[in-house]
């Protein structure tokens, strides 16, 4: 644990108003930290609350009727839970860049790419208008778009999926933010493009020392570019582990996620699927939420209790009750 | 016990999206139709009888008062229900049937020339505002409700045909139709069993909203003196007649107008309710 992380999330609980009286908790007890210049992989199945967590970092939960019910959310010493509009104005787009989940629907359909880049660039009021085009071309070059002059004049429907994604990244890095939140930036793209985007994010981190939260379903894909992996299941963070140590994971869910894709490195690795469906929001089992799907489940896992992350190694935390018995 | 579960079912049904709209629209419609049957047929007066002083105000015997010729306004207002809704029903169902059939035929047709010819005809007819083409055709057919029904049948089908053709083309490309074809079902069977129900659900939905438009057109044409002819009681022409006597009695236009609104609003609540139910919001 570092003394001064860029982002610190502690026991964060996000709820959504279903009706007037009824509240549903979508995320509860999410905890992790991000240090400057690190890439954190946030991983979990669909519905585990990854997007909600990302939105809490940019303050757009209320648009979906959700809100932070408890916990701590601190960005560079600023309490984001209590942040007013004026604080957000200083943070959004300037200090935190965001690449939305459905990046294919991310660009504005009624503005040219150039206009959107200009908009992102001019978030800095002092930026000279005459240099906007030059800076736009520079950004498009950074994200490795070919023929940037043409792309500036195009609309989003004229671009391929990979290009849209690159444009969204270009907009996100326009102000050289300290943190980029990339919510599944590669979903829906083909494999070669996925690898290129990963490479691009790595390069950006290297060149600008930006921290990145990289959300994905695909643990093997992001594992090599991330420093740390945070695993989410059913609204909770169940393990935080340095990516180098992923094979020594002490949580059955992480292990299952890692094995659920054919490992390209080890041809003998078997394709496994995770048992059953993730428990749906509101129907979380008492005790360990993975207990119903876990191969290692014991009675003690089903007892109603909170399962905090336990420090079990340097920078390695898990919530599994039986971590010391788990060995591959 | 049984009643109780029925009531509970009903309450669940109402709570679904659009349930309240459909329910209130249907209730309003049923009320005015019942009044439209009872009052002219079993009420004390005839819609064309002179029963008292012209412009007599509302009284116990004549709740809506009397019109400019001393006829009972309530009887006249409610005998219009059958005229307006009846003519509108014909004016919607004829184009509905004609348009749906033509649309399905076009959706299946292969002949390029026929397709583009009829397609252009449809576009051409739809280019005119319905009221305008109706007014123009009345010149040659002569005024009257019968002419209006004929005109609606020969112009309004084009709107249904457009919807039906689009739908038919989509349906004919769907898997189960392809499957039916490969299974060797006859063309007739495919059209009757698969195509028609699918296409007509769409055109019938449009017909419901078209009903409002058609009521407004019928009463509007009558208002212009081109539809219902005296002494027929009809909302549009009653309002047109009342126009000259606004200072004597506002009821002459208010009662038929409100009845007209009531019917159209009832239909529009139903239409909106159904569309909300379909979209599930």
């Amino acid at each position, binding site marked *: 644990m570092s003394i001064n992380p860029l982002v610190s999330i502690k026991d964060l609980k996000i709820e959504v108003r279903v009706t007037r009286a009824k509240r549903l908790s979508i995320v509860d007890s999410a905890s992790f930290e991000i240090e400057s210049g690190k890439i954190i992989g946030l991983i979990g199945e669909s519905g585990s609350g990854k997007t909600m967590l990302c939105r809490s970092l940019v303050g757009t939960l209320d648009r979906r009727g959700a809100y932070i019910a408890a916990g701590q959310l601190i960005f560079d010493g600023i309490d984001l839970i209590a942040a007013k509009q004026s604080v957000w104005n200083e943070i959004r787009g300037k200090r935190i860049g965001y690449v939305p989940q459905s990046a294919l629907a991310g660009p504005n359909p009624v503005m040219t790419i150039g206009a959107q880049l200009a908009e992102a660039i001019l978030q800095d009021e002092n930026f000279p208008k005459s240099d906007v085009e030059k800076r736009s071309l520079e950004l498009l070059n950074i994200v490795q778009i070919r023929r940037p002059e043409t792309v500036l004049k195009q609309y989003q429907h004229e671009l391929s999926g990979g290009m849209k994604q690159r444009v969204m990244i270009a907009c996100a890095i326009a102000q050289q933010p300290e943190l980029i939140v990339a919510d599944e930036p590669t979903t829906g793209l083909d494999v070669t493009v996925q690898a290129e985007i990963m490479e691009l994010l790595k390069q950006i981190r290297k060149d600008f020392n930006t921290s990145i939260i990289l959300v994905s379903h695909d643990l093997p894909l992001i594992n090599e570019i991330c420093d740390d992996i945070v695993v989410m299941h059913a609204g909770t963070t169940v393990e935080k582990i340095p990516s180098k140590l992923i094979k020594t994971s002490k949580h059955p869910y992480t292990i299952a996620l890692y094995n659920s894709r054919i490992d390209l490195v080890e041809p003998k690795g078997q394709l496994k699927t995770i048992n059953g469906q993730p428990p749906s929001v509101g129907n979380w089992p008492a005790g360990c939420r993975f207990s119903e799907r876990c191969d290692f489940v014991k009675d003690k896992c089903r007892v109603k209790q909170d399962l905090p992350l336990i420090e079990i190694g340097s920078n390695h935390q898990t919530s599994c009750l039986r971590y010391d018995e788990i060995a591959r | 016990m049984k009643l109780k579960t029925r009531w509970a079912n009903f309450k669940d049904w109402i709570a679904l999206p659009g349930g309240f709209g459909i329910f209130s629209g249907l209730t309003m419609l049923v009320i005015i139709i019942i009044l439209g049957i009872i009052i002219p047929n079993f009420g004390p007066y005839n819609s064309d009888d002179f029963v008292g002083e012209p412009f007599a105000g509302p009284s116990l015997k004549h709740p809506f008062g009397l019109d400019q010729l001393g006829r009972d306004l309530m009887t006249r207002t409610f005998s219009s229900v059958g005229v307006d809704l009846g003519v509108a029903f014909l004016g919607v169902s004829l184009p509905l049937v004609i348009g749906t059939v033509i649309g399905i035929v076009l959706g299946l047709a292969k002949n390029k020339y026929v397709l583009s010819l009829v397609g252009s005809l449809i576009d051409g*007819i739809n*280019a*005119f505002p319905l009221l*305008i083409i109706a007014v*123009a055709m009345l010149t040659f057919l002569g005024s009257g409700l019968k002419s209006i029904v004929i005109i609606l049948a020969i112009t309004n089908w084009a709107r249904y045909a457009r919807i039906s053709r689009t739908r038919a083309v989509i349906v004919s490309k769907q898997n189960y139709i392809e499957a039916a074809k490969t299974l060797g079902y006859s063309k007739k069977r495919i059209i009757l069993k698969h195509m028609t129900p699918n296409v007509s659900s769409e055109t019938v939905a449009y017909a419901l909203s078209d009903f*409002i438009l058609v009521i407004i057109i019928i009463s509007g044409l009558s*208002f212009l003196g081109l539809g219902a002819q005296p002494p027929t009681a009809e909302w549009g022409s009653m309002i047109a007649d009342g126009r000259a006597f606004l200072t004597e009695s506002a009821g002459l236009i208010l009662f038929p107008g409100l009845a007209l609104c009531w019917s159209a609003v009832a239909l529009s609540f139903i239409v909106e309710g159904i569309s909300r139910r379909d979209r599930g919001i």
Partner: protein
Amino acid sequence: MPYLMKSQALRILIGRLGRALSVSFWVMVISFAIMRIIPGDPASARLGAGAEMEAIEELRKTLNLNGSIFSQFTNYVMGLLQGDLGTSLQTGRTVIDIVSSTLPLTLYLIIFSTFFALLLSIPISTSIAWYAKAPIVYVFRSVTAVILATPNFFIAMIGILIFTVRVNWAPVFGYDPQFPQNLKYLWLPILVNTLIMTSVISRVLFSSVTETKEEEFVETGIIRGVGRRRFFWFYILKPSMAPTVVLLSYMMGTMLGATVILETIFSLPGIGRELVNAVLTSDYPMVQGILLIFGVITVFLSFTGDVIAYLLDRRVKI
């Protein structure tokens, strides 16, 4: 590449223009056919049973009813190409002359109502859709549904009851074409039209804003920190405008039809009232000519609407 793109947009617009022209052709065919598809001879119908043979023959000639259908049509088209829409049987003036003197008033009526309706619906529907407070949405939907279900002549009559019978603010008889005085006669019909158009437009705009605000790019805009005014225009209004513009152009056509009734009620000398007069006096060339004009205007309106929608939002298929 930019050259290619430009030509793509251009190709789409030219394609749409081609369709507008072909529909115009069919509009012309229908206006031509309308006098001929109905059983019986229009000339003898107009002159009545006791008419002389020569008079009927004379009228048939004026109405271009002699010769084969094909030659009649050629005559008709040749006339149109020379700007000849025929001559009114009632007044002896040329149809084109009457149209050009009555059409402007009708167009003013529509243009002003459209303008005010847009001015009202944009703030109303965007704010209701954006904040989406259930009771307000409910009231909004019900009120507009009721207005739309009410025929324009009834709304007009209520307006007259209030503003003409009680206080003489809106005279129903006579008309003064001079600029400031004409407003006295025009404001109530414009108000009635505006009310109806506002209901139509704001309903459509409401549903498209409701759809737009759920889209991912809106969130992207918020997170990018776009300023309020820019956000309103580029992230809410502009992406929602296309369906509204398409509908608006269609509605203006329908409204054009509805002015027939309004002009009769308020005795305004517009083209709509002219049409009703022509129908009542069996003035066939007038009916035919006005029908054609209405058709062509409507086609042109919907062409313009589609083009504007496309320019606003390239996702639109036209």
